[in-house]
């Protein structure tokens, strides 16, 4: 019997929309009629009011049945219930007034009063109903100035500013838990709406590890299999992601912490999880591939460079790190120095650069803009001399440089000593005779 009651009770959210529609319709027709100073709609208004009364009554019954299933407590519930009943009664009286010719006999102020009261009741009840389902600040949460969001912590600009609870945990609770666990709904007696309530816990225990309880009810529930009735969030609701579970665990493990900065959590993986959650770390690429994207380059700049025939590849999609080559064929109708100038717009984004086989001379390499992130440089088969080597200083991260087929001699070797980060230099087909120098490996 109880199951049947809940079954019918759950039709409440569907049924409520019928009286809302009918009664608003009746109200609007009445307003229209008042404005046009005619009474042409009286019968239609009566019909809408009758339908509205019927459906409102059904919604009331279903609503009552739903409330018996538990999970809805407090003042809001009784306000909603009485609001619904009163609105239904007002709609019924209005119907009686409009369906008879009382409207003509009675002073019109009575009918007007009834309609306005009924409409007010409808709005009030509807709003309270919405608050019951979505939370009382659902409507205003994002409102400027007065909304609850307006008072939240400002979003962190860097990892150093992140507060674990305020920036990470609270938003997770807000998004995934609070629609049921809040002061005016109190599923399982638990509210996660404010710190006092969170510390208090729910009917089945504390969120945190306590002296008596060795387990955290929260950790236990979020790890249950989906088939388990006690699993949280319940089946059908938006689930926690693996990252969010990891973050919640870390927060619970740390004890009742509501204001510690993230950096005070020693654990690297938590730093990573939280950084990813907040979008401060790009971890879409695992392991060594994890890189911070460079400053964005706008696509018009890229298009303009590409139009000249320069080939640009992004080393990793979305990273704004580029592998750039100037193919010799583009020199057929363009000037090399001008081509090299084109690279200035993306100078800090070039990681690999191939300007080989272009007849490049020392002067042009000298004019080339500094590139602070360049790691691999191909300069082979050009006309560079010993002087060119010291020019490489403008590429502080250079690891591999290919210089084969240039006019280099042994005299350039000492210049390499300043580049401690350099790993490989290719010097085949040069006049260099020595093969080894310090840690630099020469191939050729």
């Amino acid at each position, binding site marked *: 019997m109880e199951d049947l009651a809940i079954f019918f009770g759950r039709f409440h959210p569907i049924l409520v929309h019928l009286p809302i529609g009918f009664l608003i319709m009746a109200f609007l027709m009445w307003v229209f009629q008042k404005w046009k100073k005619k009474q042409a709609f009286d019968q239609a208004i009566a019909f809408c009011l009758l339908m509205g009364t019927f459906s409102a009554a059904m919604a009331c019954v279903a609503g009552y049945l739903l409330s018996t299933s538990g999970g809805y407590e407090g003042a809001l519930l009784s306000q909603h219930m009485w609001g619904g009943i009163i609105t239904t009664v007002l709609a019924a009286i209005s119907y009686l007034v409009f369906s008879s010719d009382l409207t003509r006999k009675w002073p019109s102020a009575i009918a007007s009063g009834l309609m306005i009261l009924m409409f007010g009741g409808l709005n009030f009840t509807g709003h309270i109903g919405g608050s019951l389902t979505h939370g009382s600040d659902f409507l205003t949460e994002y409102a400027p100035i007065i909304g609850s969001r307006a008072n939240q912590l400002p979003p962190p600009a860097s990892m150093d500013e992140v507060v674990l609870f305020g920036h990470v945990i609270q938003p997770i609770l807000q998004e995934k838990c609070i629609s049921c666990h809040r002061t005016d709904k109190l599923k399982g007696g638990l509210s996660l709406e404010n710190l006092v309530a969170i510390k208090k816990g729910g009917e089945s225990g504390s969120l945190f590890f306590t002296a008596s309880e060795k387990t955290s009810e929260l950790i236990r529930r979020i790890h249950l299999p989906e088939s388990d009735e006690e699993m949280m969030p319940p089946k059908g609701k938006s689930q926690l992601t693996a990252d969010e579970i990891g973050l919640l665990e870390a927060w619970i493990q740390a004890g009742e912490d509501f204001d510690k900065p993230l950096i005070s959590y020693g654990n690297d993986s938590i730093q990573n999880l939280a950084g990813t959650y907040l979008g401060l770390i790009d971890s879409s690429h695992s392991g060594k591939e994890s890189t911070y994207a460079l400053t964005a380059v706008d696509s018009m700049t890229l298009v303009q460079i590409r139009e000249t025939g320069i080939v640009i590849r992004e*080393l990793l999609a979305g990273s704004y790190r580029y592998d750039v080559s100037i193919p010799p064929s583009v020199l057929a109708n363009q000037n090399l120095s001008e081509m090299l100038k084109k690279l200035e717009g993306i100078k800090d984004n070039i990681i690999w650069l191939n300007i080989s086989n272009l007849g490049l001379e020392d002067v042009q390499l000298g004019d080339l803009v500094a590139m602070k992130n360049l790691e691999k440089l191909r300069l*082979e088969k050009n006309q560079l001399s010993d002087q060119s080597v010291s020019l490489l200083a403008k590429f502080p991260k250079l690891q591999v440089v290919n210089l084969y087929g240039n006019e280099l001699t042994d005299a350039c070797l000492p210049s390499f000593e300043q580049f401690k980060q350099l790993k490989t230099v290719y010097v085949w087909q040069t006049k260099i005779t020595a093969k080894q120098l310090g840690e630099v490996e020469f191939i050729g």
Partner: protein
Amino acid sequence: MCHYDKITSSNKDLQSIERNIGRREFLTKTSLGIGALALGSLLGADKMMASPLPNGIGGLPGLPHFIPKAKRVVYLFQSGGPSQFETFDYKPELAKMFGKDLPGSIKGEQRLTGMSANQSSLPIAPSIFKFDQYGQSRAWVSELMPHTAEVVDDLCFIKSMHTPQINHDPAITFFQTGHQLPGRPSIGSWASYGLGSDNQNLPSFIVLNSKNAGGQPLYARLWGNGFLPTEHQGVQFRSGVDPVLFLNNPENYDGADRGRMLAYLKELNSAQYDSYGDPEINARIAQYEMAYRMQSSVPELTDMSDEPDYIFDMYGEDSRDSGTYAANCLMARRLLEKDVKFVQLYHRGWDQHAYLPSGIKNQCKNTDQATAALIKDLKQRGLLEDTLVIWGGEFGRTVYSQGKLTADDYGRDHHPRCFTMWMAGAGVKPGFSYGETDDFSYNITKDPVSVHDFHATLMYLMGVDHEKLTFKHQGRRFRLTDVEGSVIKDLIA
């Protein structure tokens, strides 16, 4: 000026053709259209505007998924199934077991080919060639490959390759396309489709096939594009003065005329595309334009006069003879220097069912020096840094002799359960050996690598997540590795 109206014919048959958009095209267009509308409203117009640019020349946006280690690949496919016993998988214990029957415990339940299944015995045939260790990595290499022995410290051996296919055609098709039945795109086509090109004057996928090598035939579908757009199929370069067929202008036909003719043809084709909407028309336009550019880029490639003698000496005397394996290795290097993304070589004739010692000796003689020279040459030019070299066949060979075993002659049947390949260059561990086989090189004892694993690893090295590069065809998404394959991280430096 030339102007085309949308073709409207008075002929009823033609009209019906004009109205006809292919079923698949229609579905693709409408579903894309509706999908794009929905997406637009979800993302907001501003995000639609910021759609990423294609990568390189014609690559897909959103790639690469990883920082690529290999910008180019050259795959030296040794067709026929080179014996692991006479090359890299040294099995000294076999000498003591000469002529003995292969133990049942080793053979297990494996089905043999019809060529040796009915033999009364399966006599163990140890390699008659000597092995030695080379380089700092102390890798074992047979005396047949003295040049490869010089570069072992650059090689990354996989001794534990295995394949489900025991016959040539399905095994090669499996290796080249990820599936044993014809019709899937080959590796090079996937690379071209996903990553595009770095040289607009040459195809991104080029095929070279040694002349004068006998054995099982190869088919153009091995470098075919399958269901991918046609411009991603491999373009075969032949030997001799006319390496790409139908590229040259007809006699007495002036290049400028040709250019004008192609410009008009493009307009016609574009008009055709506008009324039919078949994407293959665009592929055709792209191919005509590529062919026109290749009229100047290919002669430049095949003109070997800029190669000094010592380079020819390095690759061996054969390298002066266009179309040999050695000449193709040299050509491969020239293509890689021009940033061709995927160069596929084939050398046939490794299928020694009988007279194996003389056969394999000849194969090694024709390939060993040039293979090693390619590694050395790429290295001295700094290209081995980001070029991946792959050497291997479609399967291995049996430990037992097919046919009569004598002191100095024997044959070996196909063996898919284990065989050796190697990779070198970009991103793989140099001087490294992965995987082990038992004393009979019959079963893998450690770290097996499937063909799908190999493909997954190869894609990874090129910066592609093999699970993410897919193409929807006939209602499902296809990928090179089908539903299998994992990247073998241990191979990666």
